[in-house]
């Protein structure tokens, strides 16, 4: 209660802005049964989302709503949740997140077409390999901070893409074709859908598969957030040196955040490849990393519902306004800029993140600290420069 009062008291300019505080207060005191009812309603809502009635509003211009949900929105939400672990929870700026998505896609591409592994086997392998690549990237680079880490991860994303397009083993720029769909689990039919039969014609089963992955990811990440690991991540994000002084093994936890984020991104890549049946290096360009990062920041870095909302908007808006044709990207860009000017904490930020932002660290741990605070700015950057020189 005290917290709310102070936050409100701080920002006079804040008055009149959309505040989620009443909802948060209600949610914080809501009994368990109410919470479960809400969770259940959300899942049912997600399952009913591909229906025609919703589609006619969401995608009126003729593009297939169910395909939009599975190919764009579902994938973006899953990737944003994964990147949120790295950026939102641990405060590490990763500009090469697409690399892990690519690792997932190429894992199923290689093992399914060359070795005949099935979807579920490659899924497990891809999660493992993506996590491993997260550790391999993180081990040498996580000693860097803020902007420097961002540049290194950016490079890593490009390396993966260039390697794929220059390697004959994966057909270079032509990519891998003929990736099998997941084996159908059952033929049963409900309301005209066969939700567990994965084929070419119906996108909905893939969407349900993604919903399943997303729900699992949310449960996993939420449990992480409320554990010792989550507390360590918050501490690292808010002040890495202070976290180390509290006895938090900062390096190990940063590595864990990278590995977990990467594993989630890898699983997204597997579903994407299995749905498309073909992948090529152009699927894994920097723009994907940038959009996923934008989704996280736009939605409310660190807050799971916010990140989902951000990813949804980012994937959906450009498709929804196809009738604007070439102007839609211009308007989309303008909307992003306006959003960050008027609501820098994101559409649906967490309370804690708002407090961090107001304090001046930009709510992004070391990443923001070096640009925002007048006290730390010059010295911090110079310090990092010296560190890099070593």
């Amino acid at each position, binding site marked *: 209660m005290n917290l709310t009062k*102070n936050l409100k008291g701080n920002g006079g300019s804040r008055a009149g802005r959309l505040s989620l505080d009443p909802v948060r207060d209600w949610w914080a005191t809501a009994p368990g049964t109410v919470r479960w009812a809400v969770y259940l309603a959300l899942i049912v809502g997600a399952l009913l989302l591909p229906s025609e009635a919703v589609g006619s509003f969401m995608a009126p211009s003729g593009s297939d709503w169910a395909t939009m949900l599975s190919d764009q929105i579902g994938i973006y939400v899953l990737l944003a949740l994964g990147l949120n672990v790295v950026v939102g929870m641990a405060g590490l700026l990763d500009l090469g997140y697409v690399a892990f998505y690519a690792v997932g896609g190429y894992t199923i591409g290689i093992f399914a077409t060359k070795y005949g592994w099935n979807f579920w086997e490659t899924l497990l392998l891809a999660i493992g390999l993506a996590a491993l690549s997260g550790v391999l990237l993180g081990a040498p680079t996580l000693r860097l901070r803020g902007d420097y880490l961002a540049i290194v991860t950016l490079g890593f994303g490009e390396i993966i893409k260039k390697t794929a397009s220059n390697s004959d083993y994966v057909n270079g720029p032509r990519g891998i074709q003929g990736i099998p769909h997941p084996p159908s689990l059952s033929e049963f039919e409900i309301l005209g859908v066969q939700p567990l039969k994965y084929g070419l014609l119906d996108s909905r089963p893939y969407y349900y598969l993604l919903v399943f992955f997303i729900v699992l990811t949310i449960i996993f990440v939420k449990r992480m957030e409320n554990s010792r690991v989550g507390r360590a991540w918050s501490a690292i994000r808010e002040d890495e*040196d202070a976290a180390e002084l*509290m*006895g938090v093994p900062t390096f190990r936890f940063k590595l864990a955040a990278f590995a977990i984020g990467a594993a989630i991104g890898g699983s997204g890549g597997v579903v994407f490849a299995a749905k498309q049946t073909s992948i090529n290096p152009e699927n894994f360009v920097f723009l994907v990393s940038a959009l996923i990062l934008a989704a996280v920041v736009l939605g409310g870095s660190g807050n799971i519902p916010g990140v989902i909302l951000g990813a949804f908007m980012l994937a959906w808006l450009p498709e929804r306004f196809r009738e604007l044709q070439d102007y839609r990207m211009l308007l989309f860009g303008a909307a992003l800029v306006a959003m960050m000017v008027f609501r820098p904490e994101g559409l649906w930020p967490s309370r804690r993140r708002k*407090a961090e932002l107001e*304090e001046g660290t930009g709510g992004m741990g070391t990443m923001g600290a070096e640009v925002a605070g007048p006290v730390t700015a010059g010295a911090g950057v110079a310090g990092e420069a010296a560190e890099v020189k*070593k």
Partner: protein
Amino acid sequence: MLLEISDIHVHYGKIAALKGVSAEVEQGEIVTLIGANGAGKTTTLKTISGLRPLSSGRIVFDGQDISRMPGHKRVLAGIGQSPEGRGIFPGMTVEENLLMGAYARKGDVSKELNEVYELFPRLAERKSQAGGTMSGGEQQMLAIGRAMMAKPKVLLLDEPSMGLAPKLVQQIFEIILEINRRGCTVLLVEQNAQQALQIAHRAYVLETGRVVKSAPARDLLDDPEVRAAYLGGDLGEAASQSDAADDAPAADDAETGDVRKG
């Protein structure tokens, strides 16, 4: 000997910040490091707590060589630090900040929590306020309280008086004395040399990465050179005047050396 640092050298890139600092802290003492901006005080503390790696030299704590021990393990060994600029977690509440202080410890921490609240009644009043929204003085109390949560054998304090009103400075120094009375050894880094020398048992004077003087704190209060350079007195003496003039460019050099200082 509780803490013994011998001939430590620390570099930021190619720039040497510490060029062979040696110091000792006995159980139960308050020892202070004083010196101008960029003399290497903060770097010394960061090296002891493990935030900066050593280039050479040795740190022995409680009979154990900790020179290569990672920072988070030194907390368990018994080194607590209130960092420069306080290092409060801005998004966490006061109580969450304090509990982070006990992160490395296992078991019940309510006793230490109560002790901190008793030492700093102000923090008890603000338990659920976000750390980042508190005043400078309150944040400093929180930083010290948080370090106490780990039950350190030695408490490293980096400029606890920085940016505080004189009345609050007084209060913070009284609390440091109280913490020491309760059996915690204190290593204090201060620019406010006057105050620091009044509460410390012994003091080291740092200049451009070297210890230039070490003596009981009382003696340094009367030392003409120290008075001239750090306490703002007796500038009439010819000897100390030339000393002070020497200091100025040297301090500038060191400023670039110790880049992390704000």
